[in-house]
């Protein structure tokens, strides 16, 4: 199997940098590390497809042997989508974690945070009227009867 040396070097550097950053204590860096490792793996899949060739579109007069292997590209696409989703969730988690850390001694008194959220959202929508509250509720996708707090997933979706 032939492959490009550049790709191999890129992969190695990405893996090395990713693992190095992943081992840091800060969650932000851990996320960056995971992103780097994820991309390194995508490059690895690309390397496994062998030498680059023509676009794999079947036409008359084109020898299939000159095509690039399309399957690894499909695999990479799937891997990228999965990585993207998980990274979005991790960022929501990071934000939540930062929020809880900022509260410090006050602890994670959820009700208070929810009120702050409401106040913030109220400002954003320019009114604290009942209508505004309804919008806030809709945005938070909350169907709670009591103003009980919601999880980070809601925060992420909102």
């Amino acid at each position, binding site marked *: *199997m032939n492959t490009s040396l550049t790709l191999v070097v890129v992969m190695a550097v990405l893996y090395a940098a990713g693992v190095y950053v*992943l081992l840091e204590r800060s*969650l932000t860096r*851990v996320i960056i590390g*995971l992103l780097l*490792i*994820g991309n390194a*793996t995508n490059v*690895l*899949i690309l*390397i*496994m497809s062998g030498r680059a060739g023509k676009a794999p579109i079947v036409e008359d007069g084109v020898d299939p042997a000159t095509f690039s292997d399309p*399957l*690894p590209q499909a*695999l990479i696409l*799937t*891997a990228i989508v*999965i990585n993207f*989703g*998980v990274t979005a*969730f*991790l960022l929501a*988690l990071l934000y*939540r*974690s930062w929020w*809880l850390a900022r509260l410090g001694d006050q*602890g*994670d008194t*959820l009700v208070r945070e929810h009120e702050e959220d409401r106040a913030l959202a109220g400002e954003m929508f320019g009114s604290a009227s009942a209508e505004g509250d309804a919008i806030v509720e809709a945005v938070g*996708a*909350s*169907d*709670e*009867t*009591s103003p*009980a*707090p*919601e*999880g*980070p*997933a*809601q*925060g992420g979706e909102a």
Partner: protein
Amino acid sequence: MTRVLPPLVVLLPLLGAALALAMGRFKRWQVVISTTTLVLMTVVAGALLVYVDRNGAAIVEVGAWRAPWGITLMVDRLSAIMLLVSCVVLLGVLVYAVGQGIADGNRETPLTIFHPTYLMLAAGIAVAFTTGDLFNLFVGFEILLAASYVLLTLGGTGSRIRAGVTYIVVSLVSSTFFLAAIAMVYGATGTVNMAQVAQRIGDLPPTTALMLHVMLLLGFAVKAALFPMSFWLPDSYPTAPAPVTAVFAGLLTKVGVYAIIRTETFLFPDDGPGGDLRVPLMWVALLTMVVGILGASVQADIKRLLSFTLVSHIGYMIFGIALSSQLGLNATVYYVIHHITVQTTLFLAVGLVERVGDSTSISKLSGLLKAAPVVAVLFFIPALNLGGIPPFSGFLGKTGLLVAGAKEGGWLVWVVIAGAVLTSLLTLYTLMRVWNMVFWRSRKEVEEGYESYLINTLVESPDVDEDTRTRSTTPRLMLAATTAMVAVTVGLTIFAGPIFKLGDRTAHEIADRDARITTVLPEEATDG
């Protein structure tokens, strides 16, 4: 039948999840949708098991693309058994969660996202068990893991976020390992179809095959929580809501075990060029068992304690896989069924204990036998079961494994057998200590300052989450769900004969690799 059932088991929960999400504002409808979906899934899985047991493995080529090109769904007896047990457990836990949600005003399990996520978890598990394609297995893993990330951090309290970060980062790293392994398998064999990989692995040089084998196992070992990659589990599971912990404990690690069974028996058989990893697996099994149970024996928090026993008992299954004899695989199948149901039931019972006693620490709880005799019974039966007391299924499963080991012989096997017996004994010891302290000890003794060597040396849980400590009532629905699960675990004893026979047929089917390759790739096999 063959063409409809395997995709249906994946489609149902996916559709159910979409519907449940759309019905976000109508809680009752969500409950109806997810319950119906899981009941249908259970029926389909049951039908699939009966069908597969009679007619042999069901192979579906998705989109009618023939095997090496399209994605193959492959359901044999092992997949069907795992599917059915998973569906039963998922259904039982869902009923329990609904009961808890109604009582708590949904503080701990916000139903709006709980139901869709839960069904996605079911879909991921179904994909992982039905697929015959390595990359599809990865996708299945990712679906169920993504759902588990959300479920684990439900409510977003401090302790859950902290536990969630460990869990998610570890899972992502293991997934990356798995993906890299798939890339290398593709590079080496030019395919990700399991049957074709199994066919072509014989042509690889031994060193390459061994490396692929180890890479795949490493990825699965983290998911199955094998020593030394099990550190994340007791740290992350206990903080989640009780039903979530229960379903994770029952199912997630077993998906890893299932993948290991497939790797060891189908992709890289012991006589192939992938190398014979039976000896390292024996050591891993021994260490997983012993280190896990030693961890459990110093925990004060029952949820943490159970998480450690969970890790520990994965060792038994790995022992069965490492034996790789007909009898060993048979016993492993039975043990997996037993462990999924019993571990889930125990976590559900502890959820009840938490509601009645407002704590999960055995140094604080007391007098529950008088306060809640029903809960006591519901805890006691699965506890004895897990400890391996006859006539329960834990005893039968362990005996099966030990007999299979004894037949195999060799000093290493005997060492592992000794470790297994010791682990069983220590499991009984830790669970009976829970029983003595939580249920038998009277309230008065605690008020007068209870002193005992048994609890002086215990380690308390690092996170005490006040948010989960304000319950007084125990809804009937939760009790009913737990009782039903206990009944299932007892049923495993009553129907042990038929299950062992089914396990025997499963083991035969697993051993016959060539037949599987031929069913997936008919014309390729004739070419040689």
